[in-house]
């Protein structure tokens, strides 16, 4: 359990006495574990369990570790499990830079330093100088990039992807896949991707788990 990466140790999730999934798996840093299954199979519940915000209607057992730290006992905010949903869900009351500054760890002190890091993160996803913009005025692809920059900036221990490509159109989808997977590899983040799109799984290149079939 002390190896680098994300360990799912006998994780099982049930609802109303019916077991949806049982998983034991290790995801190495930079590797993408793809979990595929039809809707209602509990794949989103798996991410919610890892992230610490599983609906109490579900009964979950098992333990989750990241690089020797057990997440299961921690509150959601202590886990540092960054998540991306289908929608970018940028905070609509903050500017683009405000969204990024919100994600930056407290340890980065000083307005100038924080702003510089936010601008760098934007430039890093190809959106230099858009910091002052209202998130709602960005295009769909730009919003998705800001959401990615935001989650990376919070220095997560792992990355959870809940069908993040399903609402993008085809060529944008391929761009975003490459961008997200290359960033995860560069930051050595273990990634869990849930999807029902075979192309996502192929593009991720990592191990594939099918559930609910």
């Amino acid at each position: 359990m002390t190896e680098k990466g994300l360990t799912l140790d006998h994780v099982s999730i049930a609802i109303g006495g019916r077991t949806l999934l049982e998983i034991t798996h290790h995801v190495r840093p930079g590797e993408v574990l793809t979990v595929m299954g039809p809707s209602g199979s509990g794949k989103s519940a798996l991410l919610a369990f890892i992230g610490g915000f599983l609906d109490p209607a579900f009964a979950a057992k098992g333990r989750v570790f990241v690089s020797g730290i057990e997440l299961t006992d921690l509150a959601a905010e202590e886990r540092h499990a960054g998540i991306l949903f289908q929608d970018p869900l940028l905070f609509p009351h903050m500017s683009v830079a405000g969204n990024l500054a919100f994600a930056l760890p407290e340890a980065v002190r000083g307005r100038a330093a924080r702003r510089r890091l936010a601008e760098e993160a934007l430039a890093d996803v190809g959106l230099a100088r858009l910091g002052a913009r209202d998130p709602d005025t960005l295009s769909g692809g730009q919003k998705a990039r800001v959401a990615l920059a935001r989650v990376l900036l919070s220095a997560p221990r792992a990355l959870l992807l809940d069908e993040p490509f399903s609402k993008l159109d085809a060529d944008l989808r391929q761009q975003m896949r490459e961008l997200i997977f290359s960033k995860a590899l560069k930051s050595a983040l273990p990634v869990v991707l849930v999807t029902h799109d075979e192309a996502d799984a192929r593009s991720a290149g990592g191990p594939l788990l099918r559930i609910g079939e």
Partner: protein
Amino acid sequence: MIARLGPPLAVLLLAGPVLCGLVGTVLPAFGYLPALGGTRFTLAPMRDLLAEPGLIRSALTSLAVALVTAAAVLMVVVLFVAGWSGTRIFGRILHLVSPLLSVPHAAAAFGLAFLIAPSGMIARLLSPWLTGWQRPPDLLIVNDPLALSMTAGLIVKEIPFLLLITLAALPQVKLAETRALAASLGYGRIAGFLFGVWPRLYRQIRLAVFAVIAFSSSVVDVAQILGPTLPPPLAVRIVGWANDPDLARHFLAAAGALLQLGVTALALIVWLFFEGLAGVVTRRLGQSGRRWRGDAVLRRSGLAAMVATAAAVGAGLALLSIWSVAGLWQFPETLPHSFTASAWIRTIPQIARPLGITLACGLLSTLLAIAVTLLCLTRELQTGRPAGRWALTLLYLPLIVPEAAFLFGLQIFFLAARAEPGLPNLVLAHFVFVMPYVFLALSGPWRAFDRRHEAIAAGLGKSRRTILFSIRLPMLLGPILTAAAVGFAVSVGQYLATVMIGAGRLPTITTEAVALAAGGNRRVIGVYALLQMLLPAVGFAVAIIVPALLFRRRRAMRAG
């Protein structure tokens, strides 16, 4: 966490005053009130009550007004929603009717009186060319003995309330789908609605209908402005006895308040009977196979009634404003000869204190209600259990127990506890009526909030407190301020609570306006009623302008 305190605090502050008030009514009604020398239980107050002339007539007036009001309001709302929801006209009418919810009852009643009185606008418009009247006719239209104008005043004011409650419940009944299904089976619009949607919808709005019955059966301000005088409805007489300088009359008032409780209960029981009957009839008709496709007349009359409601209140409010600046305005002139600010100039020096009390009481009770509501809703998030049926019943408790019955007892309770009439008591009494509306207005948007925003923030390492204060509350600022504006409007409109608990020492714009009703100086009434209407409007303007300014560069924050 402090949010844990929310639900118990809500129970204490809502049920507490109602229960204390009921105890404070029942004990003196049987002669027990040590503070006034009543140390033994006796039936004397009851005997005194029954000896009051015209008592039965007062009680029957209250009963009839309540039942007729509720039936008429429900019918108009059903016909309008059944016949028109989903159409473009529906949306337009809603824009017209929704603001009427915030108009205080007294202001709406004054407006109606100015419209339909023998010297009112309708008579002026028809005279002398049609009626031949050169002077106002000697007709008892306002304050008529059958309480028709009082009932009309209540109907036009309760329609917006029930309509908005019904609209809030609509998303839960899949209206559009059911309509399509019923139409494909060949049913008319209204029949499809009645058979397919109405039984489920009615269950959702039932408590609000009960609230309309309870309110109409014990209303005081509308009754004083529009209601019969010989004898007046029961609640008006209770207030008279309660404010009698002869403190011994308090026992009589308590007995009257107990009777009021009985009258309201009887009205509800009669309603339940007809409710059951209507249910049986609807089910029978639904099985009969008849399609009722020719419902155009019914649909049109529903629309006409809704338009007439908005027009009556709107015209009344316009009349109030004209009267407040009218110079000489003889019958049957349609408009005044001249305009003058003299009523305003004479009245403004006297307004400062009532205005101050209105603002202080409104702001404090609203602030308290918002705080308790937010605590309850935050607690709901933590436990993951939305408040159930009992919580809704608790919220409606102050609206279903007739106010004349428990407010008088609450006054006695404060008296017995030696709590001098003051702002804290008044704020507490207003809170009881403000809180239900604030909660109903805020809980919808709060529960509809996309919780994935919070999951993302937690994934970024933010604490629950940060998420609440940096994400949820700012994103819900608009709905929170709107709920506050609703609460403030309710507080501004409170008449009975202010008169009873303030013991006449804490005048507000509303109590001053109603006190002027008997005097009949239309210019001064116009000034007060206009102020009464403006205060809630200012509240709603703030609720719109503040978020618009704060988030002026955030497009997605303006949509909702």
